[in-house]
């Protein structure tokens, strides 16, 4: 009887532990999946941005068309391909905190493409469209033409989700929402955040030198 009682107690403890372990395993698996998805996402974004602007106009003495080269590492709106807009002020929707269109040749034989990353809700979308003469990069890459790329992106959540993150990481994100894309511009005084006062007059899209990527999942 005593042995049975001990056996039942140990079994209960073990099953409790097993259940906890299972729950932990499931959540860890989900977290691993999210992290892996985010890593792949960041890796792809970094790759695309690293090769952005290829080939530039400087690679041509007589380009056969405007679609043969990248007008800039990043497409912009409004005004493309005319006067570049100012990052953080006149540029809307792109390049923005949650929306960027990279211009580059991906080496897939299609020539220069527009690669758009856009956050909608908690899903970061990605889409690739071949650049066309006279085309509008924003109109050519509507959300409906993009595919979900990274899920559970928390950069722009509100309400209880934001409160949970703030509670979990106090003082970590003093400014909310957290931009996925933050731009640095070349200025006479060196690289400066494009939205800073030091970059006034030097914050056009064509002055972007670096992009910081922050992905919260």
């Amino acid at each position, binding site marked *: 009887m005593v*042995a049975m009682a001990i056996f039942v107690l140990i079994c209960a403890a073990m099953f409790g532990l097993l259940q906890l*372990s299972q729950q932990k395993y499931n959540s860890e698996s989900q977290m*691993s999946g999210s992290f892996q998805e985010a890593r792949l996402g960041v890796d792809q974004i970094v790759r695309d941005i690293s090769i952005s602007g290829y080939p530039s106009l*400087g*690679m041509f003495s007589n380009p056969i068309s405007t679609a043969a080269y990248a007008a800039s590492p990043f497409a912009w709106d409004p005004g493309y391909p005319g006067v570049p807009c100012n990052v953080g002020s006149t540029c809307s929707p792109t390049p923005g905190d949650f929306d960027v269109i990279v211009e580059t040749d991906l*080496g897939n034989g299609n020539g220069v493409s527009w690669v758009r990353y856009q956050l909608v809700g908690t899903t970061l979308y990605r889409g690739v469209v071949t650049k066309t003469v006279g085309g509008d990069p924003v109109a050519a890459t509507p959300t409906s033409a993009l595919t979900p790329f990274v899920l559970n992106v928390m950069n722009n959540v509100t309400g209880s989700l934001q409160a949970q993150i703030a509670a979990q990481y106090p003082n970590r994100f003093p400014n909310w929402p957290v931009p996925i894309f933050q731009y640095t511009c070349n200025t006479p005084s060196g690289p400066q955040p494009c939205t800073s006062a030091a970059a006034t007059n030097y914050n056009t899209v064509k002055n972007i030198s670096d992009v910081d990527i922050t992905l919260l999942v």
Partner: protein
Amino acid sequence: MNKNINSNARKSRLPRESGAAMLIAVFALLLISVVAIALLVSTGTNSSLAGNYRTATSAYYAGIAGLEEARGRLLWKNPNYINLTNSYSNLLSPSGTPTWNLTQVLYITNPGPGETVDPTNPNPAYYPDTEYGQEFAWGLGGAAIQTPLASVSSVPSLPVGPSYKWVRINPVTEKALNIDVNGDGILDGASVLFYDPARLNTSNQPAASLVLAATPGSPPVAPTPTGVEALEITALAVAANGGQRLLQYVVAPMIISPDVADQGFPAAVTLDDGATGSVLTFNPPNGYLINGVDSCNPPPPTPSSVAAVAYSSSANQGYMVGQVNLNPSDYSGAQYPPPPPPPPPPAPFSPSLWYLPQQSAPPPPPSSSPPFVGSPLRQSWLTPLSLDAVMQDIENSADVVLSGPATGAQIWAAAPSMTAANPMTIVVNGDLTLSGGFGTPQSGYGLLLVTGILTFHPTAAWNGLVLVVGQGQFLMAGHHGSGGITGAVFVAQTRDSSGNLLPTLQATFGPSSGSALGNGINYSSCWVRTAQGPLTYKVLSFHEILLP
């Protein structure tokens, strides 16, 4: 008897209790095992995910390291310059500019411990270069492969260096890049590509770009005097898990020259007042010598002399003629005709003074355009915005960057290894007072860029180029000394005192707050060429090549 009773009692308990203990132990072990395995699986998956990401990323950066090693070692002033012992004189000129023939290929290899890297060997174990054959029809079998160099990327304090395996350097063609540079509808595989930093588009605007060689075949001939050969650098990096990344640069040497014919600098002192500037100050003290006769020994065949002073806007002709005629014997050098009217030509004058007409867009100007001797200034050196961009390139490749106001002592302290054999590029963002000591002047060597006001004392000496671009004011101070400038001086004001871009260029040379004698300014083509560079190899493009 007692013994038997005890024995029976023990026998009666054993069958009921020993099995339960066994079961408990087995179940406990089983459950613990399940929990442990679950935890192990979870941890292992996480670790392998992170590991895969790390190795893939490290291969990418290893490839970048390979590209940067090759780009750095192409530069003549790099201690590991690839032509340091003149072993590759067929690839690089004495001044360090590339002269590669179409099929020439140079590898830098970086084998890991105990492995062999031979990109020309098709054996997969040797990391073969399968990309070259994709880009060039003759493949590695038809290439003139140079003796490979070993990487210098390993760091003694680290067990292994970057994990790239090889880097290839070679000329580049339209076919190799898969880019129709000249828009003729043909991907030319026989003409080497050059980079022309002074090219103008049909609207007469600066449009630096790749251009095709003047004629196909070897040796390549630049289509314009300012064209420099572009090179392709390709790096293969292999991750620990076997994943490969192939990255590629197209680079070109960056040579600072205001002269459209790439003849160095047009004068001992060039005052860049743009195409239409009307504000110019030229007021050196009496006895301040400016000599355009080439002091290089031995001098190059041509030109043996340049002008003592040059300016670019004909609107300032009358002023400049009047100023140099105040002390005509102070200025010696080549004689050039005065610019055309307006204003009406003055009486012939003997001081060396050169009017610099502006670079013309293609097609060439009609014969009725003003006659001139020598080469005009590049279009990109005639507007404040474009000239600032050129200076930004210099700053990006500088060895030392100081914030002004600065002194000569700060330069000597920041660049202790600067010598005649090791000239440097020094940038001062702001004002600079350049003075040395009594007796032998303290000397600087290389390229000096000052964005503020430069106050030069004759107790200091500079051998090379002095660019005063920004506030564009070259002032003299002090009374005595044996220093001066050997090389060339270029002055242009692009910004007002608040830092705003000016609509047109201006320049100020002088006055002096003392008698400021010394040796003045003496043109030297040798020092000009030494300081000109190449300053760096500019990255024209970067992309990753997808591997099959």
